[in-house]
């Protein structure tokens, strides 16, 4: 039984964190977010191969599985770095054949699954209809669609690949409170698409679990940084003649953050491996990670803001970036309530009254 990351994974985290330290300084992140233009960073992620993590080496990837992807997004979130292009692409790639993946990666292009980021990715697939390879329909709030060159469009039990620059494709960006992620509405009007070989149902099922795990890992990364900021602040700030970290309520809050973080790490990594290895209860593990880790991240965000007081509410403080990131992760790819509905169905309870 392996109770820590293996040395290769540790080296990977170290390398990626080091790279982020150099290439995604707080000032740069600010610039990308405030300017609403993450393309510089996205380009770097692609050019340096970080987007090829989790892809087989045979397909031009870096190898590794869902756990490595989780480790990647955890680090991205920790810095509130722009992540939609990366996340959308790693979720969409498995829909493509090996050869195509290799091409996409080589060209530094991004992809996205055309499904609402509000729901588990394997929801309703009837929004878009196909007629002789011409696709028509609208899907709202697609994560990273505004960044994607390629759109993977579910149509019933089929998948189509559509160039986002193709005729009949309209991508309308949406404004999220969390500026480190972007989303858009995608409207297809007789847009031409190529039918892919993969079955939509099984692909989306797997994608929904992978997405849940990655949203959890994202929340974990944000929570880690939120905890660090809070602890740091509480040792420095004094009130009533004592560092605020000496007040019991603050101590409990800080300890609870850390305990939640440890629990979240176990849950998120375990779920990553469970989904990767297709364990029979992988869907429960993914749902548990999504629900509990994202909730813990949201709680940590609240606690960290409370510990900071008004200073945490300022625009200049990094806390707000992480706060919003952790909050979005709760609903990203399906709020806990949505996952609960599916699990309830599995439990053999009666259908809705």
């Amino acid at each position, binding site marked *: 039984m392996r109770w820590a990351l293996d040395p290769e994974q540790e080296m990977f985290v170290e390398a990626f964190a080091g790279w982020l330290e150099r290439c995604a300084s707080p000032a740069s992140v600010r610039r990308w977010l405030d300017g609403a233009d993450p393309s510089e960073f996205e380009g770097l992620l692609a050019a340096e191969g970080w987007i090829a993590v989790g892809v087989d080496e045979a397909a031009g990837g870096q190898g590794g599985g869902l756990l490595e992807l989780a480790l990647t997004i955890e680090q991205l979130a920790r810095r509130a770095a722009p992540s939609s292009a990366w996340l959308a692409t790693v979720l969409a790639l498995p829909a493509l054949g090996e050869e195509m993946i290799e091409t996409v990666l080589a060209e530094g292009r991004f992809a996205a699954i055309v499904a609402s980021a*509000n729901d588990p990715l394997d929801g309703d697939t009837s929004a878009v209809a196909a007629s002789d390879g011409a696709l028509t329909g609208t899907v709202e*709030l697609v994560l990273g669609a505004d960044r994607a060159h390629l759109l993977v469009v579910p149509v019933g039990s089929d998948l189509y690949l559509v160039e986002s620059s193709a005729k009949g494709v309209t991508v309308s960006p*949406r*404004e999220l409170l969390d500026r480190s992620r972007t989303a858009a509405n995608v409207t297809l009007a007789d847009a031409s698409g190529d039918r892919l070989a993969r079955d939509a149902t099984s692909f989306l099922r797997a994608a929904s679990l992978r997405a849940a795990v990655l949203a959890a890992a994202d929340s974990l990364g944000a929570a880690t940084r939120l905890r660090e900021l809070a602890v740091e602040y509480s040792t420095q700030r004094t009130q009533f003649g*004592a560092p605020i970290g000496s007040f019991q309520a603050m101590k409990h809050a800080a300890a609870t953050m850390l305990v939640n973080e440890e629990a979240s790490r176990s849950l998120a990594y375990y779920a990553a491996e469970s989904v990767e290895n297709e364990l029979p209860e992988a869907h429960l593990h993914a749902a548990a990670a999504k629900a509990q880790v994202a909730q813990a991240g949201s709680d940590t965000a609240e606690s960290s803001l409370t510990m900071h007081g*008004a200073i945490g*509410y300022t*625009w200049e403080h990094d806390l*707000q970036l992480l706060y919003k990131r952790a909050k979005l992760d709760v609903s990203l790819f399906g709020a806990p309530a949505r996952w609960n509905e599916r699990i309830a169905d599995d439990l053999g309870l009666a259908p809705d009254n």
Partner: protein
Amino acid sequence: MDFELSEDQTLIRDAVTEVAARFDDEYWMNKDLDHEFPTEFYNAMAEGGWLGITTPEEFGGHGFGITEASILIQAVAESGGGMNAASSIHLSIFGMHPVIVHGSHEMKTRDLPRIVNGDLHVCFGVTEPEAGLDTTRITTFAKRDGDHYVVNGKKVWISKAMESEKILLLTRTAKFEDSPKKTDGLTLFFTNLNRDSVDVRPIKKMGRNAVSSNELFIDDLHIPVEDRIGEEGKGFKYILDGLNPERMLVAAEALGLGRAALRRAVQYGKDRHVFGRPIGMNQGIQFPLAESLARLDAAELMLRKATWLYDNGLPCAKEANMAKYLCADAGFEAADRALQTHGGMGYSEEYHVARYFRESRLLRIAPLSQEMVLNYIGEHVLGLPRSY
């Protein structure tokens, strides 16, 4: 007991609601995004005479109590104007209390009518970066020099300073370490916010962006003696008088905000259909909203009790603190649930509930944190030992 609003109170609520309704959510969203003071709204309130709701009639106001003021400010927040609307008029509504009670007749004659007619914008300069919640620790110093004081220091989180002509400024005229009691040696002024001596820098923040929050760098500000309120060294006491009503107003704002959020969530729950039925039919959506209503209603009763006690000259600190706690809590919870009702989409700038959420979160931190309220209740109501 009697749980009915008086006729006047009902009239005030309805009339203010009518004025506020002229400014829709789009108006507030744009003001918030553009970081622009809601002048049109402010003027409409001034024209209606509402800024003088608690100002004595002899100075042009209505002479009502904190009950009516809280009903007014709740209606304003509840309209969807939220904290942007409330903060634009907050100080005019009750902030002049120290001037009314302790100010000179000249000061009152000179300034109060201009506050009532909206001409005079004011702000409240108390908090400092190093003092935090412990007001006695402020260090902005006013040194007497003949017929004036020379003031130096730094203030932070001063709402509306950008837009204000005058400031209610708390200073020390004796240092903390030289004062027999820590609450001694503080002196309050009501004076011009002279830009030649005060550098006002807005602080960018997560929400409530239509009304500025500012840092003030005060460098040799000269204040004439006649701008002093009451006696030198008694400033803390004058401020203290207003603490409970201040909590009540903040409670009212939080409450209004929560009701605005709940209203939107309920509407969305009725309008939005998934799988052929309104999402509000789901108990997972409906129960949290129902519970929020119960909590908002209960918090409102506590607020009403607090204002009733204050207006009747009875002790009200317990109820004022509880009202602040319960309203801020129920308001934030309602906003949070409204966001969840809207799905992740609620977490988008395009939806007003996201604005309510950001604003209601602020009210759990400022001007008084929930934890400080619990400290108060624990120590002064339950009689447990001081914990900090």
